[in-house]
Every structure is written in C-alpha cells, then in structure tokens.
C-alpha cells in the first residue's frame, strides 16, 4: 500500500485509527484504538461485537459523519470527506429514516433530487430500484402505511439510488423480526450479487454476519479493537441461498465467530441459536 503504482485500489482502507470521545470533567472514552482494516472492491465485510466495541463508530468514521482522533481513512483512494462529497457510498441505518411526507418513490428519489438529476431519470431509476426490492405495488404509499421490513427495503433502495460502489449499513435489520430478517438477508445477498458493491455491515447477529459476509471482523470493547478477522468461505454471493443456513460450513463458521467473540470455545457449540 506504500507503492503508489498498485493497480488494485481498496474500497476502504483504515490506517491505524483511534477515536477518543472526551466527556465532561475531562473523562475520556476510547471508542476505537489502533484499528486497521481494508475492504476490497465488491467484498462484503461484517463488523460484529458486543455493545460499545466501536463498530458503529468505525462505520461513522468511514462515512465521514465523525472524524478520527488519529490515523487516516481512505475510501477508493480519497479521503473519507472527499468520498462523501463525491457520493461514493450509499448508507442505511438501523432506523429506516424515511421522510414521512414523501412516498416510497419520493424517498428513493431524494438523493437524486438533491444532486440535481432530472425528473425523467429520477423516475426511471426509482422504478428500477422499487422493482429490485420488490415493492412495485407500493410506490405511491407513504412510510406510515408500510411495515418495518418494507420501510427498511425502501431505505436500502434509497442507499442504492446513485449506484454506489460501497454500501455502509449500520444494523439495518436490527429492528426486524427474525423471519423478516432472514428474508431481507436473502434479498441483500441477491442485491449485492447484482450490483457488485462492496459492503461494510455492522451487526449484532452472528448468523447474519456469517450468512452475508466474505469476512467477519470480530471486535472487542473498552477500548474498541479488532480481535480477529475470520474469512468465511461459503461460496460466491450469487450462489448463496436459503439452503446455506442448513450447511455444515455455515454452522462451523458460526461457532468460530462465537468462539472469537467469547474468547473461548463454549460447550455445545453446535446448538446454534438464530440470534
């Protein structure tokens, strides 16, 4: 990465960053400490760890919603700030965050509208994305008329509006029930295969991380650090389907992540719980 001539450019390159929050009375909390991470183009990387391990902070730093205390972040070879200004990433949060006064189509069009795309192009792109997330019959509905899962699908469609090569997702399925959640995961896998975007995905759920990812980054709290990175070899995105959840390799990776999270092998590792 020191040689400027490297032809392969990382989607995300996090170099030795720390983030210290200073509270009142000088008390400081180290949310992230000396974190290094690279994400290749088209790669799906999950950040997993207990509350307070800094996984959301890391995502916010990549999104330039926050600035690191030390270290540097590059997104497609640019500073995080420049990448944000150039709209190199799409983002989705745990709350769908739709504007309640806009229809489904209107919400998906929002980023295009803000960046001056003309009306016809906006319409066309929104229709495409609405079909991609399977909400064709709901284009004219308002967010309060949709279920939580549908709202989250709209948010994902909105994050894809400008065809970003990087998606940043902060527990987007965290507030959904288990069944909806699994269906959304299947859809996300399909969408990622279709768009070829790299994804940084924050989650609490071990099976979710394993099912979706090429690599799972396991983090530990106080101070937030990367404990280990696990490569999940479960095949290409486009080949992943519902059956994957029943496979031996899936269970194996789930228990590996659990071991890493807890620091030791728990007894009865095969008793995989769904959350």
């Amino acid at each position, binding site marked *: 990465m020191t040689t400027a001539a490297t032809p392969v450019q990382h989607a995300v390159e996090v170099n030795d960053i720390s983030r210290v929050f200073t509270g009142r009375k000088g008390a400081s909390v180290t949310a992230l400490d000396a974190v290094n991470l690279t994400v290749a183009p088209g790669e799906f990387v999950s950040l997993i760890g207990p509350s307070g391990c800094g996984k959301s902070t890391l995502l916010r730093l990549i999104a330039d919603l926050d600035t690191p205390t030390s270290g540097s972040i590059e997104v497609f070879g640019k500073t995080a700030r420049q990448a944000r200004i150039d*709209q190199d990433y799409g983002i989705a949060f745990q709350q769908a*965050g739709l504007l309640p*006064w806009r229809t489904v189509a209107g919400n998906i069009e929002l980023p295009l509208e*803000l960046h001056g795309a003309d009306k016809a192009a906006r319409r066309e792109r929104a229709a495409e994305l609405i079909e991609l997330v399977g909400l064709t019959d709901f284009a004219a509905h*308002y967010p*309060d008329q949709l279920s939580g899962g549908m709202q989250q699908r709209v948010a994902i469609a909105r994050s894809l509006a400008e065809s970003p090569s990087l998606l940043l997702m902060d527990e987007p399925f965290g507030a959904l029930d288990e069944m909806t959640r699994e269906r959304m995961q299947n859809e996300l896998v399909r969408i990622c295969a279709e768009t070829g975007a790299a994804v940084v995905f924050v989650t609490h759920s071990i099976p979710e991380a394993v099912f979706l990812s090429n690599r799972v980054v396991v983090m530990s709290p106080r101070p937030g650090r990367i404990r280990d990175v696990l490569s999940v070899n479960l095949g290409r995105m486009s080949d992943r389907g519902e059956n994957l959840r029943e496979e031996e390799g899936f269970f194996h990776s789930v228990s590996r992540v659990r071991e890493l999270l807890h620091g030791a092998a728990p007894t009865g590792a095969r008793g995989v719980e769904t959350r």
Partner: protein
Amino acid sequence: MTQRMPRRILVGALGVLALALLWELYIFLGPADGVVVGGLTVLPRASEMAMPHLWVMLERALDPVTGSASAVPMWQAVLAASLFTLGISAVGWIVGVTVGLALALLMQRFTLAESAILPWIILSQTVPLIALAPLVRRWGAQIEFGAFSWENWMSVALIASYLAFFPVSIGALKGLGSPDANHVDLMRCYAVGWWKTLWRLRLPASVGYLLPALRLAAASAVIGSVVAEVSIGLRGGIGRLIVEYAGAAGSDPGKPWAPIFGSILVGLVAAGFVGLISLFLRRFRRGEVAA
C-alpha cells in the same frame, strides 16, 4: 374524515346551543339580585339589565345604531368594524409570522444567536400591551419620509404583530430542530448544505409544530388588535365599538353584545384561515399519524 365531518359540525352546533340554553336557564332560575355570600357576589344578577335575553341581543342588532334618521342597522356597523379589525389583524399576523420565522431561522442556524436572542423573545412578552401602545404611537408619529407617513392603524398592526411573532418564533425553532439525528446524518451523507437541508428536511418537519403556532398567532393578533385599538384610540375597529357601546349598557342592555359577537366572528375567521392553510399542508403532518 369526510364521513365524520357532518357529525363534527352537529356536535359543534349542539355545543353553541347548550351554551345559549344555559344562559337562558340562569336568567329564568337565577335571583334578580344575584347570590351574595358574606357581602361577596358569587353569582351574577339575573336582571334584564345585567343579562339580557338572547332575543333582545338579536333584536337590538337588527335595529339602527342610534335614533337618528341616518343611522345604519347595528349589525352593519359591527360588521364594518369587524372587517376593519380583521384587516389590521391580518397585517399584524403576516408581519408577526415573517419576523417569527426569520428569528427562528437565525436561531437555528447559529447557536450563538439562540442563546443571545431567545431570552429576549421570552422577556418581550412580559411587557404589558398598555405600556407599549403609547410608546409605539409616539415613535410612529415621528416617522415620515416622502409621501409615507405613519398612521395609527399601523401602530395597532405593529402591536398585533408583537403578540403574534412570539408563538411562531418558539414553535418554528422547535420544529426546525425536530428532525431525527438520523435524518440530519443522512443529509450530511448527501453532502448538501444548510439551505437545502432546510428546504428538504427542516421546514417540512417543522409543519407539525408550525401550524398550532400559526393558529395561536392568529388569535394573538386579533386580541392584540382589539386591545391596541382601545389603547391607541383608533376609530373604526371593533375594539373601539366595544368600549363605545359598553357605555350604553345602562339604558340599552342589548347594545354591548353586538361588538362582542363581532370580535368572536373575527377570531373565527382568523382561525378558519389557518385551518385552510393546514389543509394544504396535510401531507407534511403524516409523521404524526405513524406509529
């Protein structure tokens, strides 16, 4: 909503009817000299002078204002005065809403402005109107350039706006700050500036806070106009009529009631106008319905 509309009108009409019945019932049952406990009158006198029948009020409104041959029917005089006051209130409301919004935007944009201005805004409402009216009139009288000269009705409108701007500035400030952190983050991710964020996010989000504030401002503007007309001594408005006709109560008990109903009418029209605005902005209040 459309299904319930006739029902709501019916309930409203029943409420007015109940009030009228209560009035007449007290006149019928209440003692003519009122109820006095230990030298204090706790219930009013029910005499014809103190509490005229509703039909007396109505009949009086249809009769000419005075005995002179040129006098117009009283309802006409009251209606003309109501329109006059409504016009002044409207000017006061528009000025008040504009100033209130401008202050709210300034305070939203600069935190420093909020801590500098907000206390003064709140303090401003503790100044009694009656103290303010002569000052405004005196200052206004000194304003004159070219063909423009300050007139008394402008002083009244200014005082009305002084009352009206308060709820708007407070409501708008709260409304502009109401979007979720999520939405604000999203706008930052989209790398759009303050103005675009204002137009696409903060203003639409503030509608739910703004509408009650506008309604309050309308009521305040009407009250401000009526009171300021009296304190400044402006002729032609409903405030002046209330004072003038009250003087006749001794011999003509039905007369003071007409301008009171006139001022109620002004208030209703003002509230109805804001209701009309909220009808157009219904889309932006969707969030309030969502679970």
